[in-house]
């Protein structure tokens, strides 16, 4: 559907050394790319900078060739860039239905909004049963489901996910990543998913990109990374 290009992106916190220094990355139209790397490698920083939550010191972020620089996070969302943040960001004080409606607000009007929300209930059965429950009463798996559904309801062109498997049971992870993969295949959605759960991420991704100390150290087909013990050992430490 759309291509995300990161070109020479430099990001840092305060006046410390940059966490990302001139990082280049391309996520082509319709690809599912796994963003791998140890804790502190800069995965979250990269996703937040692309989303506009952390200011960049230099470089560009392009969506289908259009520079997103200078746009605030809320306006990047309206250009078709979705982010499911680390820790999921379900609004605890709002119900499942309100969280979903909020995600759909800017994208759909009137009855189309209701239809879009209902389509997510069909995709995520358990949410339909808990539609009037407050966010803070949901289980970890339900929260992640809600966060994903809430991002998808806005029909993004490019979806960024930050460690969706964090704290979830393996079966739940497989379920969620399966939905993600099928949605990407059905709609042509472009996905960049940061994960520490390397095996799960590579099982649904086309490509694996490994970050280390704020730079891309390798970028290969997911199958090769998952299958080649030498590569795994060199870049992923197992």
């Amino acid at each position, binding site marked *: 559907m759309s291509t995300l290009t990161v070109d020479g992106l430099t990001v840092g916190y305060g006046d410390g050394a940059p966490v990302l220094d001139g990082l280049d990355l391309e996520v082509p139209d319709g690809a599912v790319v796994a963003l791998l790397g140890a804790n502190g490698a800069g995965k979250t920083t990269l996703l937040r900078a692309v*989303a506009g*939550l952390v200011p960049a010191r230099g470089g560009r972020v392009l969506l289908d060739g259009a520079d997103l620089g200078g746009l*605030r*996070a*809320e306006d990047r*969302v*309206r250009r078709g860039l*979705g*982010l499911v*943040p680390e820790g999921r*960001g*379900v*609004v*605890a*004080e*709002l119900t499942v239905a*309100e969280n979903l*409606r*909020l*995600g759909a*607000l*800017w*994208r759909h009007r009137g009855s189309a909004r209701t239809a879009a929300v209902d389509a997510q209930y069909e995709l995520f059965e358990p949410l339909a049963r808990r539609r009037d429950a*407050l966010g*803070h*009463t949901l289980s970890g798996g339900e929260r992640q489901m809600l966060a994903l559904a*809430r991002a998808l309801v*806005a029909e993004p062109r490019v979806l960024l996910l930050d460690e969706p498997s964090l704290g979830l049971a393996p079966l739940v992870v497989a379920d969620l990543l399966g939905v993600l993969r099928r949605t990407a295949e059905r709609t042509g959605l472009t996905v960049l998913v940061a994960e520490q759960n390397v095996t799960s991420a590579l099982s649904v991704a086309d490509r694996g990109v490994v970050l280390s100390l704020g730079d891309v150290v390798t970028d290969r087909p997911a199958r090769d990374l998952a299958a080649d013990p030498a590569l795994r050992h060199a870049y992923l430490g197992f």
Partner: protein
Amino acid sequence: MDRLVFLVAAGLAHGAVLALFAQSLVIVWRANRVINFAQAALAVVAVYAALAVTAVSGSWWLGAFAGVVAGGLLGAAAERGPMRLVPTHTPLPGIIVAIGLVMILQAGLAIAFGPEYQPVPAPLSERPFVLAGIPVLSPYDLLVLVVAGLVMAALALGFTRTSLGLQLRAAAFAPETARLLGVRVSRMITLGWMLSLATAALAGLLLVPTELGLHPHALDGLFVQAFAVAVIGGLDSPAGALLAGLLVGVLVSLVSGYLVAAAAPLAVLALLTLVLLVRPGGLFSAAKERAA
């Protein structure tokens, strides 16, 4: 018995105004996590504007409308101006700037309109109806109760049932997540301040005819009592502000009626202390949810 009925009825009317003003503090608190200490000074400016329009047009209603609009504009100006510039990671800078704003506004009003009380006539009679020999509410008290009740109901419905209300709540509870869902959070905060000050201006307008009249400090007492009401109700809770407002209104009326008026502030303070000892988050706090 007669006296009790009269005092409770009068207390409810005053309590409705308190609840309305407390509501305005709750709205800003929810939007921004700040207590606006300049709320009374900003609201009193709007009341001056309202009475100026009433004086020119001869219509109290037109003046009231102008006052509410002026309150909204002042809210936007305060938030976009000084409040946005102060750091928000600790409460102190905001409080200091607000107090500075209070001094400027009140001194400015005193210079422009003089330091005397200007009597403000009520738009309806303040003579109580007599029911079965007992004087109860006046027509003006009834107007106050109805207007305050309608406005609070409209606010509650607006916040819980409309898309705009959903965005206002999301922006207040989880600003970053709201931005990721395309909510224009900074606009929502400004809007929260506008709603808040329009509400505060209305409360001030309803109050002045029942007291000494208009004066740069005319709403200071209202702010102090409403602040206590908001804290007793739980700061985060519109329903808490309503119930605590009525409770404090009746308490003040009973203490003033049976003891002396001077004891009323002490009674409010005692109630506040008691509530904070038993339930530190206020009677209707929602602190549990955020912690989860």
